[in-house]
């Protein structure tokens, strides 16, 4: 056993392999196995993988070196030599622990959530397959392996979103997710080809080595814009997978899938693949200022845009989905200002609290018999105490309003790094770019606080709008689910403590751990900037708290039920107070809610309906047009076919004649 732990690097292949085995067993014979065994296989495979990941992480921390293992050549063709190798360095060690750890919790939660579904074995098989693909993505030491995992998670996402095929909408949502992802992958794939073209290798370490060894060539590549093109193409892939503008459209639709899937794929792991990829190739990305700036803009705009959408949604999962998009935008902002370790830190904390939020939402949904509309909930805090607390903690973390809670730490670090960013090209040169985008980030944070507590208010604190008998039937779902919620809630609080920055009295071990991967010189923020961080923190936190309270009051008390509140015959003072409150609400409605909400709804409608959908529909219409034209060629009549053959010949010959005429 000791031997095993000491030589863990020889066994890291088991980390992805175990879930694959679980997939094969459950997929092939799961139907004939008793439920218990299906659960057991599904969970134990990922749990074992988690244990190994933890051991690997421990070893990496212990030795400070990456665990690498090469399994020899995979294939070679036309100068392309691809080897199979796995690598667990500081970055991937963190990632595999998130994937397998959160993955395990979600597996465990699914036992309760999916109870009674006849295709449960298939569900577990797909979950395992997903974990396998994600682990391959994270551990692969070359871009092709990374791409395989990249596509693999897309495929699993498709399979899992469309898990309940009965409904054609689900199938369509799955298809949409898959195809939008493919569009992103298309950019990614071309980027990979170009990397091979210019660096002659697909091995990540090899690329890094090339950059170090051939500074002259690299300089030419940078000046020629090649690096910018490559990184932009890679970023297109990242926008697809991590749901950034313009390819974010699939993620809200993907909420059609079962909630654990949303938690695992669309919150905790898969969507972070783009962020991870940028971290993995940070040495390439940091060579192109243009790309970094574009990432910053895209990240910030996405964060703000989806934040404004989230405040108007009624569907509980949609709120969380848009908030995920928004948080991913934060991560991209962090990556783009060179604060890679901060981005990864937020990735990790986000994985904890977003998984928690989705799973809590899942138990709310289960408790309300698959009702997802928040306007039909309310008052659940009494019926679902555990879920309520868990979700409350998750929301505190998401909004980052309480110091020392994980989300607070990571989000604040991001805002600080963005504030300190001093870049800017072209139009933006000379402007205080960092401060502008800090402003955007701050506004987003305020939106975040608002919609977080709006959700809490509407779901848990407001008077219930459910029918009485329904309301009384609401009860906390199974023990397994509650356990997971509690575990994740604890993680959401303490998960960030590994990264407490110095200004808050910590020494940020997370950052120094990851700095082995991310060259310390590329990350900002080692210098103290006096009181600035404190001021920034104070501004964002206090504003956040204020908005959270506003939201909590607006939605937690008497939202849309003023009449009933007054008719109940409570004292005059209370009545007047409540009246006044109503008045304030009205004011807010007019000043704040109406304008901003209308504005954001309008924005959403316009951008979504006209630009995004228009683009999609336009492409569709173009396809229809081409096909219609094609149908005119395919008349089915043999004479006209012959005619078009002659036309083809004539076209070729005319072209040839013109081509030769000039000679």
């Amino acid at each position: 056993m000791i031997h095993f732990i000491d030589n863990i690097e020889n066994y890291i292949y088991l980390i992805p392999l175990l879930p694959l085995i679980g997939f094969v067993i459950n997929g092939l014979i799961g139907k004939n196995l008793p439920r218990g065994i299906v659960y057991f296989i599904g969970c134990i495979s990922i749990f074992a993988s988690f244990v190994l990941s933890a051991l690997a992480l421990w070893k990496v921390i212990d030795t400070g070196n990456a665990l690498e293992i090469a399994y020899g050549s995979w294939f070679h063709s036309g100068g392309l030599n691809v080897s199979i190798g796995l690598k667990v360095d500081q970055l991937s060690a963190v990632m595999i622990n998130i994937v397998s750890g959160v993955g395990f919790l979600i597996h465990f939660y699914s036992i309760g959530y999916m109870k009674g579904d006849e295709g449960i074995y298939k569900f577990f098989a797909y979950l395992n397959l997903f974990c396998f693909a994600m682990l391959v993505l994270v551990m692969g030491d070359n871009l092709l392996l990374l791409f395989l995992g990249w596509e693999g998670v897309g495929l699993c996402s498709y399979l899992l979103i469309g898990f309940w095929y009965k409904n054609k909408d689900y199938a369509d949502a799955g298809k949409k997710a898959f195809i939008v992802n493919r569009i992103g992958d298309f950019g990614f794939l071309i980027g990979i080809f170009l990397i091979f073209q210019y660096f002659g290798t697909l091995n990540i370490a090899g690329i890094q080595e090339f950059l170090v060894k051939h500074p002259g060539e690299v300089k030419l590549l940078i000046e020629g814009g090649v690096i910018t093109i490559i990184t932009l193409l890679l970023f297109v892939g990242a926008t697809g997978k991590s749901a950034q503008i313009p390819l974010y459209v699939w993620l809200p639709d993907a909420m059609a899938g079962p909630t654990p899937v949303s938690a695992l794929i669309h919150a905790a792991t898969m969507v972070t693949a783009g962020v991870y990829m940028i971290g993995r190739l940070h040495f390439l990305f940091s060579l192109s200022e243009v790309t970094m700036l574009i990432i910053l803009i895209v990240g910030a705009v996405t964060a703000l845009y989806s934040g404004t959408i989230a405040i108007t949604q009624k569907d509980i999962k949609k709120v969380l989905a848009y908030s995920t998009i928004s948080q991913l935008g934060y991560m991209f902002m962090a990556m783009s200002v060179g604060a890679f370790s901060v981005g990864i830190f937020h990735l990790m904390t986000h994985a904890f609290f977003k998984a928690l939020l989705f799973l809590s939402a899942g138990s709310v949904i289960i408790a309300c018999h698959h009702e997802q509309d928040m306007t039909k909930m309310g008052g659940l805090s009494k019926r679902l105490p555990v879920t309520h607390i868990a979700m409350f903690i998750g929301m505190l973390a998401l909004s980052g309003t309480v110091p020392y809670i994980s989300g607070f730490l990571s989000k604040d670090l991001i805002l600080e790094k963005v504030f300190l960013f001093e870049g800017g090209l072209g139009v933006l040169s000379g402007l205080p770019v960092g401060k502008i985008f800090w402003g955007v980030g701050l506004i987003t944070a305020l939106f975040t606080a608002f919609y977080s507590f709006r959700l809490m208010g509407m779901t848990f604190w407001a008077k219930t709008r459910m029918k009485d008998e329904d309301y009384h039937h609401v009860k906390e779902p199974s023990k397994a689910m509650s356990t997971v919620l509690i575990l994740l809630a604890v993680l959401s609080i303490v998960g960030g403590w590994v990264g407490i920055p110095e200004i808050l009295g910590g020494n940020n071990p997370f950052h120094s751990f990851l700095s082995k991967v991310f060259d310390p010189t590329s990350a900002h923020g080692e210098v103290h900037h006096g009181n600035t961080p404190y001021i920034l923190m104070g501004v964002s936190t206090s504003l956040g708290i204020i908005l959270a309270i506003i939201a909590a009051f607006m939605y937690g008390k008497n939202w849309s039920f003023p009449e009933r509140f007054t008719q109940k015959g409570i004292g005059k003072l209370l009545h007047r107070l409540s009246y006044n409150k109503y008045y304030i609400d009205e004011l807010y409605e007019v000043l704040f809610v109406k304008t901003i909400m209308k504005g954001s709804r309008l924005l959403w409608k316009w951008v979504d309906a006209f630009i995004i959908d228009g683009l999609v529909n336009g492409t569709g219409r173009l396809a229809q047009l081409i096909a219609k034209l094609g149908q005119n060629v395919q008349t089915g009549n043999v004479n006209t076919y012959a005619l078009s053959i002659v036309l083809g010949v004539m076209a070729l010959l005319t072209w040839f004649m013109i081509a030769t005429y000039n000679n």
Partner: protein
Amino acid sequence: MFTLQNSIILGLILFSIGAYGVLTRRNLLVVLMSLEIMFNAVNLIVLAFNYFRFYQQGKELGHYFVLLVIAVAAAEAAVGLAILVTIYRNRRNVDSDELTEMKG
């Protein structure tokens, strides 16, 4: 008059006539006949080239080729007519306009 150019032009005229037949005739029997005209036109061109350019060198490759083309044309005609007979048995006509069950 009796030159390579004119022979080729003759061949191409016949080829175009045959092709025109394939393009316009609805009667598939006549379409098959038009195809035969096209093959013949090609044979004519091959033999013309063979005679005017390579006869002095004693080449008769063109002759062999033309014989092959005739054999192939015969085989294709036989199969084509067989299919036509089948179609006639099923449909009672050999009209290309009726033969558009599959399209789009």
